[in-house]
């Protein structure tokens, strides 16, 4: 008797079942719409500069070169260890850093980096990234600003 009574209370009525499932379906659909909304705003084509670019033949960068490629926002260096490229976009808020006595300085909030791009003072949260350098079939060096390499990775090409 008691068990029958309890069963009656726990069993969902048809009306409640339909209402609940309709409500849950609407909620799920709602989340789907919201996700789609945000996905729509994520553009798949960018009108930005390509992040992989040629910088010229290795001979143009003799040992001792330190060149800032303004429009590409990288520094390209060449020393005994080989070629390497360091970003010149400050990791704090995206200003362009310039070379200073012993590394790089950012004009915006005064972050300072050493010659390897490591933060030594200021608010910058991360070191300046190093970018991958490869060589194309025509012999040009290619910087890939979309691919970071560990700090200190220098490559030799000729």
């Amino acid at each position: 008797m008691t068990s029958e009574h309890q069963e009656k209370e726990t069993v969902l009525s048809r009306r409640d079942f339909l209402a609940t499932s309709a409500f849950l379906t609407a909620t799920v659909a709602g989340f789907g719409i919201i996700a789609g909304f945000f996905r729509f705003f994520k553009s798949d084509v960018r009108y930005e500069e390509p992040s992989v670019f040629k910088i010229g033949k290795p001979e143009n960068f003799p040992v001792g070169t330190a060149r800032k490629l303004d429009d590409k926002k990288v520094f390209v260096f060449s020393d005994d260890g080989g070629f390497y490229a360091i970003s010149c976009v400050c990791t704090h808020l995206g200003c362009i850093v310039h070379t200073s006595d012993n590394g790089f300085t950012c004009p915006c909030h005064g972050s300072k980096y050493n010659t390897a791009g490591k933060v030594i003072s200021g608010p910058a949260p991360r070191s300046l990234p190093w970018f991958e350098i490869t060589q194309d079939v025509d012999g040009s060096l290619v910087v890939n600003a979309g691919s970071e390499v560990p700090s200190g990775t220098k490559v030799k090409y000729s």
Partner: protein
Amino acid sequence: MNEVEVNEIERSGLSKFTDNLKSLAATVFGSVFRNGSPNSDKARASAIFNNFFLHIQGTKTHINTLRPSYTLGLGLISFFLLVIVVASGIFLMVYYNPSVENAYQSVKNIIYVVFGGNVTRNIHKWAGEGMIIFVLLHMARVFFTGSYKSGREFNWVVGVILLILVFVLNLTGYLLPWDQLSYWALVIVSNIMQSPRELTDSLGITRFFDVGTFSREFFLAGMVPGKESLNRVYLFHVMVLPLIISVFAGIHFWRIRKDGGMTKPDAFSPTVSDSGYAVPPAKTAGIFPTHKTYGLMELARGKTPSVDKDIENMVFSWPNLLIAELAVLMLTLAAVVVYSYYINAPIREFANPLIPENPAKAPWYFLGLQELLSYSAFMGGAGLPMLTLFGLFLIPYLDREQYNVGTWFTDRKGKLIAFEAFVISTVLLIGILVFAVNFGWLRSWFPEIPQLVITLVNPGSIWVGFIIVWSLFVIRRTGSTRMGAMSLFVMFLVSYVILTYFATEMRGPNWGFFWSMSQWPIH
């Protein structure tokens, strides 16, 4: 055939026509404004509730609400500024062109060639930034009179949403001229959006949970402000945000009605100077005899006006309230036009992504944040602002005392607590800034320190932590949550003002410290 019809026939068609012509002005006017200028109490009431634009107001208004010293007209000024901004914005849209190639040229065109263009642009700019100031002041008035209480909790929340919208509207507008100033301000802001990365990176969860990049792509469609960003920001600025803010302003006003009008002190008594408001309705005339009743139109859910209480302090909105509103509108409009006639909105050279401005500064209303940002991007850009907004939202729910609502600063003790908070926060905050300028911060002393420590412990987070602890201490000391909220709010206002001033005037190239802009080195 009755007499009228006979008359109709006997008069010649032409004379009917000339009669109609003569009364044309009166009949057209009468068909639009059905009641004419009201001269009875009933007519004064229906002048309000029969008018689409006026019926959002009550037919009667409490004298306390009409006193300029209570609301200071600040909410109204904010609203009228919004109207001015929308109107002038439509004019600017006639010539503005949101493309990277043309935007800058079209703004120059508006400034130098278009008839009235420069003043229109100035009006739009100054009224827009004026909104920030007046909405903040309005919020302060609402806070200090305790008007976020007694049923108005939700309207305070709507208010904070309006505040956020005002900030975002100004910000999106800032990019549109596409000059150096706006470009680099947007670079800064887009990096602020990216700033949660500082935390997710330190915790090593960026790969799974990259809110920073997400929000940046949402607003800018990429990593740096570019073609698509301009398109999108323009869409937000002229279309999406104005629609949203109109809806919320509508809710704001509707709630004021439903909450029973403005707050007012319990112990209200009219003074001699209040006798200027129209005579109270004669006891025998009108549909609202003083002691008998009040119309449905006067009643709203909420505590006031209640039966037979304070009803004698309600006067007709027509003409009292309407005259006051008209006066505020005219003063606001006049001030904006005169200011805009003399002071030009800035424009710099065409945006150049290769040469940053030095110093690159966000728009002034975000400079307080940028100062915090110069300690830690995450705290300044995301952590502390979120915490502040969260705190503002919660104020009416964490302080629920109903004592002395509608009285400036609640009571004598309230004034003292507010003054105390003002002095302490001014002195301490300046002290912290002086310290940070002179001695630097953790990384200057321990270069190897992990980023996570700096993210968590920096002048900004320490300061906000102090404010919270101090307010809790005040609550314990006085036994009143209202007093705690008072300290919190005063310190919030002081911080906003001091940090904004400091970062605007005293931060120069390389974010170095200078006593004033005139000392910046030439570079």
